């Protein structure tokens, strides 16, 4: 590519960019027993910073920003959910479906049956995931945009049904629900779940199970011909992925002590996709990264009101065009590889 060729001014030599893995990466990549503290640190550093950072932040931040941190984790969970489902080949435009169902389930259990959040949140998560998976089962055989359309339409349908029939509080929603004990417990709860999902999903995708999901995304006819029931695996992927989003919904219900039609708002679909696009799809770390950049940024720009959405869209579009692989991939490349100019003949 001529883009990578550079001509030295005044001389006739052209250079091209060359990328090599760093020695330390090559050394620590495939061996299980790391032979030096330096290598161990190299591998642990990014993960360690994330974990330690997230665990320590709630203690350091003022209350307002802790709340922002909580919402950031919520959106990050949604982004993880989207990324996971996308890695099984399903492009979903309806994270808000999972979020809303989880939220309503938890809220309804709390409002009508007076169960405490310790029950409603797990039940909301599991019940929400199962309900949404069953809802989407008939269209698992659709691909691409048609699948996306269904996930897009379903929440709209649910909104109208709730509006029309007035169940679950109808237009006003259910309010005065039981709160979570205190802000710090809430923050640590969601941070813990987020970390579990992040590293859990990553680990899952590394196993053979994850390989099957990647295969389904790559070429589902081939997977079918090798004896794997792709619909069963897709359903499982949907279940696993939507749990994170349903948890987010159930959590937010008790965090704000309210559930209503805003639980199905388009924001909960667009935000995770924007975060993942900015951070880089295909690695959960990218989605996390995107979330932790976009959400605090949003808060800082809260002053400009509705221009926020304009800015989001702008951001998303710019990133999709200029950095299609996402920021995270770029950073990862820098971390793992060195670039240098090499003389060409």
């Amino acid at each position: 590519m001529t883009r990578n060729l550079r001509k030295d001014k005044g001389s006739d030599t052209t250079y091209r960019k060359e990328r090599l893995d760093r020695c330390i990466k090559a050394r620590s990549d495939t061996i299980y027993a790391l032979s030096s503290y330096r290598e161990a640190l190299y591998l642990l550093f990014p993960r360690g910073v994330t974990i330690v950072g997230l665990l320590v932040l709630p203690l350091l931040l003022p209350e307002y920003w802790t709340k922002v941190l909580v919402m950031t984790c919520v959106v990050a969970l949604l982004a993880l959910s989207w990324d996971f489902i996308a890695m099984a080949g399903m492009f979903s435009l309806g994270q808000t479906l999972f979020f809303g169902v989880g939220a309503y389930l938890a809220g309804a259990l709390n409002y009508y049956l007076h169960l405490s959040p310790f029950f409603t949140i797990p039940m909301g998560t599991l019940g929400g995931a199962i309900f949404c998976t069953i809802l989407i089962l008939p269209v698992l055989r659709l691909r691409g945009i048609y699948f996306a359309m269904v996930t897009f339409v379903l929440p709209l349908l649910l909104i109208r049904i709730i509006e029309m029939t007035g169940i679950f509080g109808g237009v006003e929603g259910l309010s005065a629900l039981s709160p979570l004990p205190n802000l710090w417990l809430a923050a640590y709860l969601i941070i813990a779940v987020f970390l579990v999902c992040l590293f859990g999903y990553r680990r899952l995708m590394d196993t053979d199970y994850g390989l099957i999901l990647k295969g389904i995304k790559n070429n589902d006819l081939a997977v079918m011909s090798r004896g794997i029931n792709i619909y069963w695996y897709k359903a499982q992927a949907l279940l696993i992925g939507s749990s994170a989003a349903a948890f987010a919904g159930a959590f937010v219900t008790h965090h704000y002590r309210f559930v209503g039609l805003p639980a199905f708002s388009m924001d909960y679909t667009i935000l995770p996709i924007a975060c993942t696009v900015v951070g880089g799809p295909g690695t959960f770390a990218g989605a996390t990264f995107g979330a932790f950049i976009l959400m605090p940024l949003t808060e800082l720009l809260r002053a400009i009101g509705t221009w926020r959405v304009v800015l989001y869209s702008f951001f998303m579009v710019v990133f999709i065009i200029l950095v299609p692989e996402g920021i995270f991939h770029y950073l990862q490349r820098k971390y793992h590889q060195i670039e240098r100019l090499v003389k060409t003949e």
Partner: protein
Amino acid sequence: MLGMLIYGLINSAVFMLMAIGFSLTFGISGVANFAYGAFYVTGAYIAWQLINTLGLSLVISIIVSAIITGLFGALLYWFVLFRIRGLLLSEIIATFGIGIGMLELYRSIGLSGHSYKLPTLVDGSIEILGVYVDYQRLIIIGVAAVLVFFLWFFSHHTKMGLAFRGIAQNERTSLAFGIESEFTAMVSMGMGCCLASLAAAVIIPLSLIQVEEGSNVLILALAVGIVGGMESIAGVILGSLIFGYAQMAVATYFNPHYTVIVMLATILIVLVIKPSGLFGKFKELEERV
């Protein structure tokens, strides 16, 4: 009864007009333009500006607005879609994002309210078989018919139209035949936006220019395409008729609020049973067997 038939037809014509531009770009040429709704509204605003600020006559404003919107669409292709062509999901996300951005921009600037109205082409109404229909609505039917015919003729009998279909079906082969796929796609996008603007110019006089209309139009165009089959003109006609009459029937015999539910449910049912639409043949988008 007769009134319902006629109003259903008008409704269908409205939907048909809304869906045509989108079908041209996405269905026939395979270029995703999810900012379509935003262009619809843009066309209306530009026409409004031309009429109120420059004082041009209505017909000229409509034509000029259509051209400008079309050029705008082509520019969008040139700067944005050009780089991500071929990655369908990226195209969708990018254009969708731009569409939402544009609509929110309009909302933020404050382009909504009673002052934003487009005048009708012809005032007054006429009585047809005992039913009063205003001329504007008749014009809508006429324009819809003309545009649909034009679309059919264009995509089946002109070189450019056939090129549109070619790049959707197999881009490499089209290139081998000397069709410049980039340019063709750009033209297709421009034409789609142009049609959106024309549709807006004819439909919006019935009410106001509203930013929400943008999202509604996109969903409707998608719905009509999905139900009827994206790439088939007959499908667009059938889809619009189905939705047009369904909306009328539900609003008259049940509760007007149920119309949206019925429409959304229709989309879902079609997607489950026959995803490529009633007349569609894009089987690659669904699993076999």
